[in-house]
């Protein structure tokens, strides 16, 4: 049992070390080094890391580039936000509205009763279930519609991008039901627990990190199963897999749906930590940013994707404070550069240079061995002449 956990969930020695380093950075270094404002910012970036990890699964291993992970990030985020908004819209705090007891933006849009699809979000259990089920079902429908018809490659990317765009337009257009372009704001408590306090932010940061580690372990488990090897086989020779008796489309639907759930968890944690959700985290631009995070980190490396996300976002924060208008160009350049020169991203560089360092250390040991040998010989010679 212990050994399955070690080899399959942790990914053996290499995988274990990578996880340990990530945990050390997330749980010890960051909280000690940063104040709560900056730590909360890192927490926000780490929610994007869920989307980057999902892209490693869908794009790196599944071989289908989704330019619509923002859809699922958004669905998860909105599910969470709907629950929090309902809790924030109690009778006492909405007493001045025309219709008390409904979210403020609905009141501004002349809506007089809570829409039916909002009702179940009074329940936290339902909300948590919805964060998993809604994106999974949506991804299943998109996946079945496309993969069963053997739509793949560029066409799949373009269609997912179009869906991301459509969803944004829908959210903005249906202002009374969704909060429109401003999104769902002024979120306060989770079952009476104030999420804007400093201690809540610490707790949510650690919860977020824990979930991220959990997601990575689950992904490792999936990749180390026969399904993982089938994914590799499919990327190489899809027809051979099909003519070996596998329904290839089902495997792609599965990995796409899994990716959707992972992104949605990130979205829900985003809402909790940042305190609002808006369409600007759903559309084309955030979806492409997520692809860049995964590409910079290394699209075949789960832990690499997390580091990639942190680095790109650190760069974004540092750079856009001084040159806000240049940031987009720099990010575009970064993406092109990575794809052209480091196709395996940071993880690829680490692997390459890690090996170099290892051989360097070995060489040093070699040098000292030669020195020892020479000294011994000299000593022996001296001994011989002395006699």
């Amino acid at each position, binding site marked *: 049992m212990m050994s399955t956990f070690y080899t399959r969930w942790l990914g053996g020695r290499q995988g274990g070390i990578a996880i340990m380093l990530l945990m050390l950075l997330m749980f010890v270094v960051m909280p000690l080094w940063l104040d709560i404002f900056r730590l909360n910012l890192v927490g926000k970036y780490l929610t994007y890391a869920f989307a980057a990890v999902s892209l490693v699964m869908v794009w790196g291993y599944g071989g289908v580039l989704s330019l619509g992970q923002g859809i699922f990030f958004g669905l998860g985020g909105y599910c969470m936000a709907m629950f929090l908004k309902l809790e924030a819209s109690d009778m006492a705090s909405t007493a001045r509205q025309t219709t008390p007891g409904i979210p403020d933006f609905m009141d501004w849009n002349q809506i007089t009763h809570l829409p039916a699809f909002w009702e179940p979000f009074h329940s936290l259990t339902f909300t948590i279930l919805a964060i998993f089920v809604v994106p999974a079902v949506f991804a299943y429908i998109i996946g079945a519609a496309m993969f069963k018809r053997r739509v793949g490659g560029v066409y799949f990317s373009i269609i997912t991008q179009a869906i991301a765009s459509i969803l944004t337009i829908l959210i903005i257009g249906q202002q009374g039901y969704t909060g429109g372009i401003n999104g769902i704001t002024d979120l306060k408590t989770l079952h009476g627990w104030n999420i804007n306090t400093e201690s809540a932010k610490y707790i949510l940061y650690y919860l977020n990190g824990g979930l991220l580690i959990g997601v990575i372990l689950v992904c490792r488990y999936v990749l180390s199963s*026969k399904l993982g090897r089938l994914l590799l086989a499919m990327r190489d020779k899809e027809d051979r897999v099909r*003519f*070996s008796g596998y329904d290839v489309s089902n495997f792609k639907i599965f990995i796409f749906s899994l990716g959707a759930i992972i992104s949605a968890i990130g979205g829900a944690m985003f809402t909790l930590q940042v305190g609002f959700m808006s369409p600007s985290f759903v559309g084309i631009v955030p979806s492409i940013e997520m692809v860049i995070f995964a590409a910079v980190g290394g699209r075949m490396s789960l832990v690499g994707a997390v580091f990639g996300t942190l680095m790109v976002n650190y760069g974004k924060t540092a750079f856009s404070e001084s040159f806000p208008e240049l940031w987009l160009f720099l990010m575009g350049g970064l993406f092109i550069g990575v794809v052209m020169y480091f196709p395996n991203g940071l993880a690829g560089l680490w692997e390459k240079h890690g090996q170099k360092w290892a051989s360097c250390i070995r060489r040093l040991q070699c040098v000292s061995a030669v020195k020892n040998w020479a000294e011994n010989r000299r000593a022996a010679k001296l001994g011989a002449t002395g006699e």
Partner: protein
Amino acid sequence: MSETDFALAIEDLTVSFDGFKAVDGLNLYVDKNELRVVIGPNGAGKTTVLDLICGKTRSTLGSIKFKNKELTNLSEHQIVHAGVGRKFQTPSIYENLTVYENLEVSYPKGRSVFGSLLFKMTTEIDARIKEIADEIFLKELLETEAALLSHGQKQWLEIGMLLIQDPELLMLDEPVAGMSVKERDQTAELLKRICVGRSVLVIEHDMDFVAKIAHKVTVLHQGKILAEGDMKSVQNNPEVIEVYLGH
């Protein structure tokens, strides 16, 4: 169509690509335990016939029955589940997996999404993989990455990936292409061994090899059957000679 005793019964099979009939009213029957070789000049429609049987191409007309089960309306993986295995013309193996992993992935268990997620290696499967590797002459190379195999070894590996599924109809498209003389002899022995208890359909150009293995030979020309019979009668058929030499 009535029930037959044949393992594979193809009747009036036709496929047309924009009006061009690659296969034209084909009738072909293969017995159980039979090793049938299909020959014919380039463009005769040999590979298309295999594509039609395994579902890669959809027929325009006609029926393909395998053990009296209609295949023409099944999807590719259902045809495999019915017991049909097919080797492609260029060796189609997973280059970035080892020989062992190639065979493991082809083992007919854990074929559904959740089945493959929960798939567990057992000593039984391990033994089966080693048995097949022994049969295809790759016992010593189990841990070798498939990309590093020679062309002939890749062909064997693909045959092994089919054998591990124990299909009742095995279709091989040019199994000895790119093999040395010694490898060809070994492959001939292999085919003779594995056609016991199943039907084998082979497409091949190498006539010496065909003569070594074939129980019966079918000659295809322009999507139709030109001649059928044992190797000798086919070789002496004036029409067959005309088709081969006339080109």
